[in-house]
């Protein structure tokens, strides 16, 4: 078991108030592809970030179990977490425009990821970076390595991000809406690339997305979240025939080219969903 989460809660506390954003999530993951879907604010990203302990300092994490490959993440020190972050679990963020360092060359950022966890000289790291850029299908890796993030397109930036996160050969890849900031045509390319690399390397994948059809094609399993809770978990292939009213509601809101409608329905929320 790569990831084991039981009853995870994430709360934000200030002196006067407390808000619980994740309210008792449980999930298990082996070397498979898990999709997490749900609307904005449903706690998808927080769940993923809690696993890597990448939450802001005012977030309080509690859980019955929160382990990565048997390592207790909750009690792990910052030093211990650094043996997981990057090295064993990569994390791809949404928009490469903001998630890459604007004043460092692409090559140096990829090389840094490699060198942090692998032993080798600066020269070896540079070569490894160029090899990695080549692996994510960048055509002229040597030129791209010398350029800065603002000089490349969004799709290219996300390839760089993927190369960077795969550099230390992790066992798990978390992709937090990796294609939301990209054009539709580029989205497909990036997803194909992730799928290809993940299956070739035999990694686990957590794909966080808004896009239900995409997740149903792409993943093995899908977890549907709403308001910090899991609504249902099902095989990806069965997503289009989901039973839960929330999932059905989400599916119903997807516009269709083959059966166009005058007006898309509005999701009717049921307070009962929150008290299973």
């Amino acid at each position, binding site marked *: 078991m790569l990831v084991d989460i039981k009853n995870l809660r994430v709360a934000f506390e200030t002196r006067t108030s407390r808000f619980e954003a994740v309210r008792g999530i449980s999930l298990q993951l082996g070397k498979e592809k898990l999709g997490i879907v749900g609307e904005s604010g449903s706690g998808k990203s927080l769940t993923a970030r809690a696993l*890597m302990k990448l939450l802001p300092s005012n977030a309080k994490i509690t859980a019955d179990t929160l382990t990565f490959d048997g390592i207790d993440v909750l009690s792990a020190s910052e030093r211990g977490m650094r043996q997981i972050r990057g090295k064993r679990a990569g994390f791809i963020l949404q928009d490469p425009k903001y998630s890459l360092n604007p004043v460092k060359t692409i090559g140096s950022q990829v090389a840094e990821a490699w060198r942090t966890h692998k032993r080798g000289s600066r020269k070896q790291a540079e070569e490894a970076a160029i090899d990695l850029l080549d692996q994510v299908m960048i055509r002229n890796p040597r030129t791209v390595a010398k350029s800065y993030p603002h000089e490349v397109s969004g799709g290219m930036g996300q390839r760089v991000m993927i190369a960077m996160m795969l550099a230390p050969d992790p066992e798990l890849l978390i992709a937090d809406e990796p294609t939301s900031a990209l054009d539709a045509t580029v989205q497909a390319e990036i997803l194909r690339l992730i799928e290809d690399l993940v299956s070739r390397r035999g990694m686990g994948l957590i794909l966080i997305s808004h896009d239900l059809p995409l997740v149903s094609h792409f993943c093995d399993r899908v977890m549907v979240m709403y308001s910090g809770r899991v609504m249902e978990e099902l095989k990806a292939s069965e997503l289009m025939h989901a039973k839960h009213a929330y999932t059905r509601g989400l599916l119903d809101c997807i516009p269709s080219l083959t059966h166009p409608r005058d007006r898309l329905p509005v999701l009717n929320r049921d307070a009962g969903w929150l008290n299973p």
Partner: protein
Amino acid sequence: MKNLTGILSSVLLTLLGLAIVTFMIGRVMPVDPVIAAVGDNAPEAVINRVRMEMGLDQPLVFQFLHYLSQIVHGDFGKSILTRNPVTEDIARYFPATLELATAALLIAAVIGIPLGVWAAVRQGRLTDQIIRVVCLAGHSVPVFVLALISLLVFYAALGIAPGPGRQDIIFEGMVPHVTGLLTVDSIIAGDWDAFRDALAHMVQPVVILAYFSMAYITRMTRAFMLDALKGEFVITARAKGLSAAAVIWKHAFPTVAVQLVTVLALTYAGLLEGAVVTETVFAWPGLGQYLTVSLMNADMNPVVGATLLIGVIYVGLNLLADILYKVLDPRVR
């Protein structure tokens, strides 16, 4: 290349504006330069002759062109007070300010920047609060108050610091003038007693100016870093498994270095402008004091000359900051 011509032409334009402003200062001031030169009691004939000699009977445009050609040739006329050419006076006074300002800026930057980073990293905690209070005090207590207290305590009461001035009277004129910076000149001369004396005299004004500048630099660094630390690329850096120190210094800090350059350049310019008050309290013979004394005596040539110098320093440091921008930030290249 296109960029460079753009910058150069804007610099030239600014300098021209500066020349116009300083020229105007010389005209609007309610001081008749002729009377200032020849005295109240000079006969009418003399006044008229001098007025013509000075070219003051000509149209304003010609006067301005004449003034332009003078300043381009580095001629600012003579000071009535010291009877020296203004350039000579400035060459003597300015190094004193340069020495003070440079030392103060270096100390302020070396302490202020890490302190600002530290405060940002510990935002809201005790360290941050202490740093913020220290900076608030440094920025809000007038420099002359600190200067007077310092003199009172360390010079008058405890006697562990030297009094006002740049050096003790026994060292006056002992070290040959090379750069005008007493510390540097005494090292060149190998006169270690003079060096120690010059350094000891610098301690109080430098520390006070450094504290004042540090307060500003720390505050700005803290604000820039708080912004940078919110960036997504900081999450990326942490997700890569980097140490906290690497995340802060290798990822967040380089993105604020650009903004800090401007802060440092303007702080330095402000210090070079002559910390008038500090120089007065410590009887420091620098540019600020020269400017103030000349102004109070309606000695306009030095005022115009010093003002022009300060303007050129500002333009120059801004230019330097612009160039450093391009070096430090790939986005504006």
